[in-house]
């Protein structure tokens, strides 16, 4: 337990009769960037709210830094910075005032507000009313609020929402920076796997409240089995021929046949076989199923 920043043990959560989170056992190692993936409505935000004790979890199911959350709420919250859903910003206050207010609540120096504004690139908009901020600026301010107390654990709920490509890259680099140089643990949720793939060291995939996969990013890659794609004329008869020859066909379009990849020798044999039987093979290559499809597969089957 000591090595996990977050650990949930068979966590269940219901809204009325509806089960939102079912038997969830998250294990987020210290110092990791944990990508918390799932389609919209999978229970990601609910889980994050449980981790912040905003939603009441049953006792002895949620542990942060090894401590049970309901009985150590304040001590744990001191070590967490969070951005949940839309950033919580007072529209009638300026960006700086929003941060100063947070400094007041956390009992930290107000100078920290300026430091954070420069960090997220809002120094110039510091004295502008937050309601006049663009979506991306609000998101940055939300991230600044999460970081201001210099927490050991960051919970970021879709932090790149509404950011332009530059902003997305900045947030990505900031996360990598925080984890590698400052030893922070980051749990970042997203419904986009491509986003997580670039930063995360660990991944958890959730759908309909259930954890479908949890492991390192490499373990996730291993799950994706490589395929052999063959571009051939007359896929109909080529397909029929291959099936008759004992091959398993995964997919077939009017241009391409997809089979499970086994080895390069096998691919060569297959090529020769097709040519010898009068088919024209225009290309033949191995393709790793991309994670996006894997993600869809994992979430679809359940």
């Amino acid at each position, binding site marked *: 337990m000591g090595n996990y920043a977050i650990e949930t043990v068979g966590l269940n959560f219901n809204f009325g009769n509806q089960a939102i989170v079912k038997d969830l056992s998250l294990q987020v190692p210290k110092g990791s960037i944990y990508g918390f993936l799932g389609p919209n409505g999978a229970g990601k935000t609910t889980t994050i709210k449980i981790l912040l004790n*905003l939603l009441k979890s049953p006792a002895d199911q949620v542990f942060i830094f090894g401590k049970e959350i309901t009985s150590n709420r304040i001590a744990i919250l001191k070590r967490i910075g969070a951005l*949940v859903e839309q950033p919580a910003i007072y529209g*009638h206050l300026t960006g700086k005032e929003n941060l100063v207010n947070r400094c007041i609540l956390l009992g930290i120096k107000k100078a920290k507000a300026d430091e954070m504004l420069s960090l997220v690139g809002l120094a110039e908009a510091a004295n502008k009313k937050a309601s006049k901020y663009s979506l991306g600026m609000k998101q940055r301010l939300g991230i600044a609020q999460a970081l201001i107390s210099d927490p050991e654990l960051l919970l970021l709920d879709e932090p790149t929402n509404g950011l332009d490509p530059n902003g997305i890259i900045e947030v990505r680099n900031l996360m990598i920076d925080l984890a590698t140089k400052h030893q922070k643990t980051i749990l970042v949720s997203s419904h986009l796997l491509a986003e997580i793939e670039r930063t995360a060291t660990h991944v958890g995939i959730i759908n309909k409240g259930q954890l479908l996969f949890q492991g390192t990013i490499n373990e996730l890659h291993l799950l994706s089995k490589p395929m052999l794609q063959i571009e051939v004329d007359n896929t109909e008869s080529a397909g029929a021929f291959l099936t008759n020859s004992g091959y398993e066909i995964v997919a077939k379009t009017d241009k391409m046949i997809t089979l499970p990849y086994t080895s390069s020798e096998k691919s060569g044999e297959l090529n020769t076989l097709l040519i010898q039987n009068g088919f024209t093979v225009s290309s033949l290559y191995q393709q790793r199923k991309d994670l996006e499809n894997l993600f869809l597969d994992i979430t679809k089957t359940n």
Partner: protein
Amino acid sequence: MHALYISLVSEFYKSRKTLAFWAAILLPVIICGLISFGFYYDAEKIIANHYPPMLLWAHYSGAALGVMGFLIMPFYVIFMAFSVNNIEHKNDTWKMLFAQPLNKFSIYAAKYLYAVLLIFICLFLFATLTYTFGHLLQALVPKFNFSQYNPSNILINSYAKLFLASLGILSLQFILSLLWSDFLKPMGIGFVGTIMGIITANVGWKYAYLIPYSLPTLALRITKVKKGADPLAFPVFTQEIWTSLIYASVLFIIGYFIVTKKSIK
């Protein structure tokens, strides 16, 4: 205690640019200013009535107290209870507030205390400005006899009663505004309650004191009745005040339990 203090500071910091905060200052300034202006403008007529000093003060302070007690006060309290909570509803910041390393009681109590404080400031200014503007009128129009009577006791007692009598409404409205994020529900209930309170208080229904909304009216009505006899002798802690304080404390505690049980969506 420290958590309560910083929560309170934060409440002030957040609201210092909002109408809710400025209303506490502007309302007494405007109302007392208008009444004083009226007295200044109609000075000849008023002096012609030859009121004894005490009655002149009663007449003068009663103008603000009457408007305030019967109509504005309940709505002002309803508005305060609403705006202190609405600042979080509107900006969707409850989740942020309760994710801070502060105990929930401090966050809740700070909000409540801040509303109480705003009402106190408002009524304190009413009493102070009534007193100051009265003496200012005296200086401007020497024929007035404001200076021949010291109204501080009667002002302090009346406004203290009004303040204490409004705490029951505050606690009730505070819970309503805490539960509902929209303007209409707490306002609608408050409006109906206030009308009901004024009617029941004025027809003299014997259980009127059980309705929090009728308490400010009841508190002031007794002030007026007793004023004829010995204006300084009326007690502050009457039945209405105790009822109001009991309502306030019970509802405050209930509100806290609502907050602790509340899941932040």
